[in-house]
């Protein structure tokens, strides 16, 4: 792979003295587990890989607003409506910090946005599942944001400075999001039979997709090794999945509900949680665009972008006029 060639020895022979000095410094920073900053020399493959990862993360926040925005107008109490609005707004904010972090690597936000709209860029597969019931607001908060936290907490120490710093703030807000999701489910679980059923149904639908958010099993995750060497990723997909499933196995008891995985147990001998086999073909299908609502999610983004074109043009024209006015004055 290109990534390995560039960070390995094959190309070092053709590096200029300046580049060689930059590379030595980069290697030293990585070795001492310190931070790479935007002006530092970095291998092209590092830049490319980080741009891809950070922008995918930003896209996930933006697309991830949709399933929840879907319920703002129907939230069943004014307090829940306020909390949900604040949460979806936080997600737009996360998208903004992350696009800004990605921009420090040299790719402007409109280019990244174009990659999303054209379908070339990926985002988290979980948002291609529909949010059909109010309880899904609970399951998304508890399971989806919970899995996101497990994934993202280690990223607060990612070797790329702007990414790590963005993640610190994102993680703080995500913990509030997970709490509100759990609270929604707790309230439903202690409510009427219909509410309890709604909560269990949401957990049943989101459990497996949430476990798949950590990515394919370690053996099938080609990018992980390089990412770990660069100290972006700190734990393997399976390690993170283990932490997460162990956590929710305990929390679901507080809810008095169940995970749709009767065989789930902690195996003392291996020290691992044994969960059901996940349907990796389903993940592949969803990632390649065939999830329940992939088409709908992208189209909503395209529509908003197209309908807003005249507004952005007006804002740009106004800014240009004001700039000319200042020059003349």
């Amino acid at each position, binding site marked *: 792979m290109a990534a390995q060639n560039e960070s390995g020895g094959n190309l070092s022979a053709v590096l200029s003295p300046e580049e060689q000095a930059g590379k030595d410094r980069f290697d030293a920073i990585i070795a001492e587990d310190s931070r790479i900053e935007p002006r530092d020399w970095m291998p092209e493959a590092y830049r490319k890989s980080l741009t891809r990862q950070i922008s995918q993360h930003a896209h996930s926040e*933006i697309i991830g*607003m*949709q399933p929840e925005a879907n319920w*703002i*107008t*129907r*939230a*069943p*109490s*004014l*307090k*829940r*409506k*306020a909390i949900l*609005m*604040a*949460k*979806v707004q*936080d997600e*737009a*904010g996360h*998208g*903004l910090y992350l*696009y800004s972090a990605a921009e420090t690597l040299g790719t402007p936000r409109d280019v990244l946005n174009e990659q999303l709209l054209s379908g070339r860029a990926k985002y988290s597969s979980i948002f291609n599942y529909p949010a059909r019931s*109010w309880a899904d607001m609970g399951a998304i908060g508890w399971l989806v944001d*919970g899995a996101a*936290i*497990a994934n993202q*907490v*280690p990223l607060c*120490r990612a070797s790329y400075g702007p990414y790590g710093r963005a993640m610190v*703030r994102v993680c*703080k*807000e995500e*913990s*509030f999001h*997970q*709490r509100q999701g*759990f609270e929604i489910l707790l309230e439903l679980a202690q*409510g*009427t039979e*219909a*509410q309890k059923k709604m909560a269990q149904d949401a957990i049943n639908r989101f459990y497996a997709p949430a476990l798949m958010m950590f990515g394919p099993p370690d053996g099938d995750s080609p990018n992980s090794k390089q990412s770990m060497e660069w100290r972006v990723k*700190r734990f393997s997909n399976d390690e993170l999945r283990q*932490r997460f499933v162990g*956590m929710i196995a305990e929390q679901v008891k507080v809810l008095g509900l169940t995970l749709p995985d009767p065989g789930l147990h902690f195996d003392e001998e291996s020290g691992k949680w044994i969960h059901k086999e996940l349907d990796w073909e389903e993940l592949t299908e969803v990632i390649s665009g065939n999830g329940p609502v992939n088409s709908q999610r992208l189209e*909503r983004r395209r*529509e*908003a972008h197209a*309908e807003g074109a*005249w*507004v*952005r*043009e*007006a*804002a*740009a*024209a*106004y800014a240009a*006029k004001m700039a000319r006015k200042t020059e003349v004055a």
Partner: protein
Amino acid sequence: MSAHDIDHSLDSFGDTSASATRVTPGNALRPEDIAIQQTAPGEDVAQYALRLGDDALILAQRLSTWISRGPELEEDIALGNIALDQLGHARSFLSYAALAWDKTEDDLAYFREEEEFTALHIVQQPNGHFGTTIARQLIVSIFQHLLYTRLLDSSDETIAAICAKAVKEVDYHRDHAIQWTLRLGLGTEESAAKMRHALEILWPYVAEMFKDEPLYDALGDAGVRPSTLRAAWDEEITAVLSDAGLEIPKTGSAMSFGRQGEPSEYMGFILAEMQVLARKHPGASW
């Protein structure tokens, strides 16, 4: 980072202070505080709080649908924030009104019929395109800013306290609407034409904002006669529109009586969506 550290980080699960949008302690009167306060308003003040609450609630409901549909990510956040502020004001006013009738904010929001709502027609108008929403915001936020500023001196302490928080937020809404009116009015030919059209279709609902009703005779210093805000509102909006190269439309006034329980045709759809889940599960707690 060790596995232990991850565990530790997940301990913050349960941290209510972690949201960027949290209410800072001691900063403001919260709807929850109003709901448990000992003094209920009299019937007239309750009716007044209901009107202010209904306007804010319906506007919040309308604005909230911009979230994830804005022309820029920044506008998803800005309009979402304005919607959230309006919802906060609505919750405070409705919680206060509800005390008079031994009800809750949710009883009032979710279990009243169309003709029991008292919202002005201007806030019921659809979002339209971004320019329509900005025109509606300009009209309403200048009005609310003038009104809440005067209500800081309301003889009703709760109304004054709610407005003390609300006026600062509405001042920002007004600034947002003015900045966008300038950009759209002076931006491109297309944006100016869209703004002109938006103002024309909304202007018929301006007059209703300033109509006095018998309620104000009974309210005394607790309320503000809306007719007394008109001159200041005219002056302010005329100046903004003039700076933006726009004009006050020559359209007349619609016969709209939202305050008297005659909602627009839109109201049925707004409530059908807003109330559907709560009404499917009467008595349930969320």
